[in-house]
């Protein structure tokens, strides 16, 4: 789980495009634009996913974890690059994500599954 305050996002947005391009994928930016509430949900999902993957000290670029928020669909996570490699290493076969918005912050919960029931 991770929680991100909207004012932390607003502070970063003052850095302009450099912040957005370092952290978010093109698809996330298409959906979120520069909306602090939506960006906070994306960032919370990325961090929650890193925790669910039991990240220790591996370098994991934020852009290698993408939150997909398509209209009419449940949110989902797409892993690429270093994040996908870590998931494989951990034996993670699926991630489920839930995001929520409060008046000052957004939160995300990510659950990792490691295979079927035995």
């Amino acid at each position, binding site marked *: 789980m*991770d929680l991100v305050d909207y004012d932390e996002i607003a502070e*970063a947005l003052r850095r302009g495009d450099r912040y957005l391009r370092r952290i978010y994928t093109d698809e996330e930016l298409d959906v979120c634009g520069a909306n602090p509430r939506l960006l906070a949900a994306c960032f919370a999902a990325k961090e929650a996913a890193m925790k669910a993957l039991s990240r220790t000290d591996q*370098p*994991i670029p*934020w852009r290698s974890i993408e939150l997909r928020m398509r209209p009419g669909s449940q949110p989902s996570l797409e892993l690429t690059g270093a994040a996908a490699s870590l998931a494989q290493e951990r034996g993670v076969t699926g991630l489920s994500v839930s995001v929520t918005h409060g008046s000052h912050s957004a939160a995300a919960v990510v659950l990792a599954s490691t295979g079927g029931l035995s």
Partner: protein
Amino acid sequence: MSALAEEIRRVLRDHARLPVDIDSIDDQTDLFRAGMSSHASVNVMLALEDAFDIEFPDSMLKRSVFESVAGIDAAVQELQKRAA
């Protein structure tokens, strides 16, 4: 204290949103355990890039780089060395 360490502490004071005064923690203190959030570490990273005219590569985007004043100091020195 070196000028580099002083500037790092200024960036942390302005951007890490620590619940304690940066002067009350030593160079080895774990900043995340001290209360720095994941996103605050991003704001710290961006502020460090502006302060020192550097860019953290993907290979440095890991917890150990940002978890202490000492870790940040070592990383900034390494990036300055590469740029020289």
